[in-house]
């Protein structure tokens, strides 16, 4: 008997077991930690940063610190005092030399169209700091806009550190000069339409996938294993084929000199090529094709578990096939329908590549606006705000999906 064993002998067995179990749990947690740390760096923190960017108001405080400080006491009524004008003149001159004036100009232009011109031309014309007491008169002379209260409320509202501007803009709202939340002017109010369009396409694709996927899943679930495995290739091969390949194939098939138009013209059904791609039809076609396997697989895994005895029992009790299907079979497939629909919908509303390639300008979904504001116009605040709204919708749906899939091993829907 080893000394260690003897030494531990006076510790009750129960406690030693507990201690061993605790050590095991720590080891288990230790194995998970590297991945958690990695995801924190490559995923969680970047997403949190994006959400923060949707509220971060850094441009004006950074470029015009003196003006921001001077406007602290201003109550928003009438024009600010002479000191604020002097601070603005000083800030504009400093920023112009540092080359940062355009950053603030861009931010303020979101609030008032034309602000960029006002600010930049003031910067150009303001050769030297106005003599004490003349800043107000000088600035208003250079640009009459400085004599308007709105120009100053714009600076005050963009003074940070956080703003609701981008998040409100993402749902077509804005604040008026008095700070009340009102509807955005019609030329800027486009995002509600974009969200409605995104959800409409999402619903449409989900419905199409359900209609097309249900008979396939039913057939696969009710064939003998050998044959259904063979037919499963027809579902898995497209699933594994590159998204770009499939999108490319649809364009080749549907374009005006494509296979479909060519065949229809050859058959004499049509004289002019039909417009089948770069419109909503093309988007529905390609997206349904891409997402259909995500509907079939969860449906299949649920249908596979439904015992045929129920249907036989219903039939033996005299139920006609339609009644038996609607009242006995269909209700049992609800978990699969729910999981499949949620999965397809979640994936559909976040899609970027397929609509970008096969859709027209009027078919672009929210993702493409996020990408556009990130890379083209560099309006990161708005990109982040739209991203935050999309993320919120996705998370809510994913939580519902998690609740539905809980306890059931539906990895079937997830590339498996």
């Amino acid at each position: 008997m080893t000394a260690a064993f003897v030494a531990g002998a006076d510790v009750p067995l129960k406690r030693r077991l507990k201690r061993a179990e605790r050590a095991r749990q720590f080891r288990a947690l230790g194995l998970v930690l590297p991945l958690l740390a990695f995801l924190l760096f490559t995923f969680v923190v970047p997403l949190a940063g994006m959400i923060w960017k949707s509220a971060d108001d850094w441009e004006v405080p950074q470029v015009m610190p003196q003006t921001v400080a001077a406007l602290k006491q201003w109550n928003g009524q009438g024009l600010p005092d002479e000191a604020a004008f002097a601070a603005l003149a000083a800030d504009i001159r400093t920023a112009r030399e540092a080359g940062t004036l355009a950053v603030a100009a861009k931010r303020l232009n979101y609030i008032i169209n034309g602000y960029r011109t006002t600010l930049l031309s003031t910067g150009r014309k303001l050769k030297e700091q106005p003599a004490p007491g003349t800043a107000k008169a000088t600035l208003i002379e250079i640009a009459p806009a400085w004599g308007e209260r709105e120009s100053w409320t714009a600076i005050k509202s963009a003074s940070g550190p956080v703003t609701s501007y981008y998040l409100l803009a993402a749902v077509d709202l804005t604040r008026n000069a008095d700070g009340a939340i009102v509807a955005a002017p019609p030329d800027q109010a486009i995002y509600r339409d974009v969200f409605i369009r995104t959800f409409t396409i999402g619903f449409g694709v989900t419905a199409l996938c359900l209609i097309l996927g249900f008979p396939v899943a039913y057939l696969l679930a009710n064939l003998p294993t050998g044959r259904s495995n063979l037919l499963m290739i027809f579902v898995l091969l497209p699933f594994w084929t590159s998204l770009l390949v499939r999108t490319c194939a649809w364009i080749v098939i549907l374009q005006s000199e494509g296979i479909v138009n060519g065949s229809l013209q050859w058959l004499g059904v049509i004289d002019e090529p039909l417009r089948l791609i770069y419109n909503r039809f093309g988007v529905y076609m390609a997206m349904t094709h891409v997402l259909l396997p995500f509907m079939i697989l969860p449906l299949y895994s649920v249908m596979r578990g439904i015992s045929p005895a129920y249907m036989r029992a219903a039939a033996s009790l005299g139920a006609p096939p339609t009644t038996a299907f609607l009242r006995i079979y269909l209700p049992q497939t609800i978990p699969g329908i729910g999981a499949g629909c949620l999965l397809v919908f979640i994936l559909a509303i976040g899609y970027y590549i397929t609509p970008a390639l096969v859709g027209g300008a009027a078919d672009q979904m929210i993702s493409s606006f996020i990408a556009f504001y990130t890379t083209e116009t560099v309006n990161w605040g708005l990109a982040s705000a739209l991203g935050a709204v999309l993320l919120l919708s996705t998370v809510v749906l994913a939580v519902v999906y998690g609740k539905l899939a809980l306890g059931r091993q539906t990895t079937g829907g997830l590339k498996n």
Partner: protein
Amino acid sequence: MSANHSPQTASQRIAWITTVVAATLVFIFLMAPILAIVPLSFSSSTYLTYPLPGLSLRWYEDFLGSARWMNALKNSVIIGVASSMLSMALGTLASLGLAQWKSKWKPLVLAIVLSPMVVPVVITAVGVYFFFAPLGLTGNYLGLILVHTALATPFVVITVSATLQSFDMTLARAAASLGAPPLLTFRKVILPLILPGLASGALFAFATSFDEVVTVLFLAGPEQRTLPREMFSGIRENISPTITAVAVVLTVISVCMLSTLEILRRRNERLKGNAE
């Protein structure tokens, strides 16, 4: 026809035939685009139309002889292999841990681990772009490998966890009771049995990275453009027959991966069958 579906009445037979017809049409819908593109890649003409004027391999030569496409292929393989290895290491460790860990926090941790799969890739790409740019992780391989690893790990965790679930832990306990230290038990007992699961996990990870284009659009410089990225710009501009040749090559790669997976799955089932 299976025993559980022997149609008895006329209406049942009609319902079954309707299902078969509908499913067949959907199968055609699923397969047609992929099949339609194959012959076009062998066409001798620049026009992507049927009937083919003649057969030729010129578009494949074009693909293999193009520095741009070969560079893209090289990038795809580098990024795919590196990120699948990294996600295998992280994902397998985490799956082993998750299998033993009992805590009320487990669902939350699992949700975090799986979330890169659910969050729209555009959002991930934008967030990572903002975060990586100041760190100098854009326009190089490392940034892309890191983000592809994050996107691929959930698939590894799901695949490996599923394999571990069917793994009989009494085997590991038996090894331990015979005096094997944990690492030896893992190497000699657990690893050989879960290897098919690990291999399919790695394949999933590679496929995820190999097909990913959105983060490449945001993070890659001209030197890191991958095959899907080149295809994206090619499709945007004008689909040339070379793109159809690339598409066919990619499809063949998918078929190979799918067949490997199927072989692994069968092997796994056979192993399970023997264990029982």
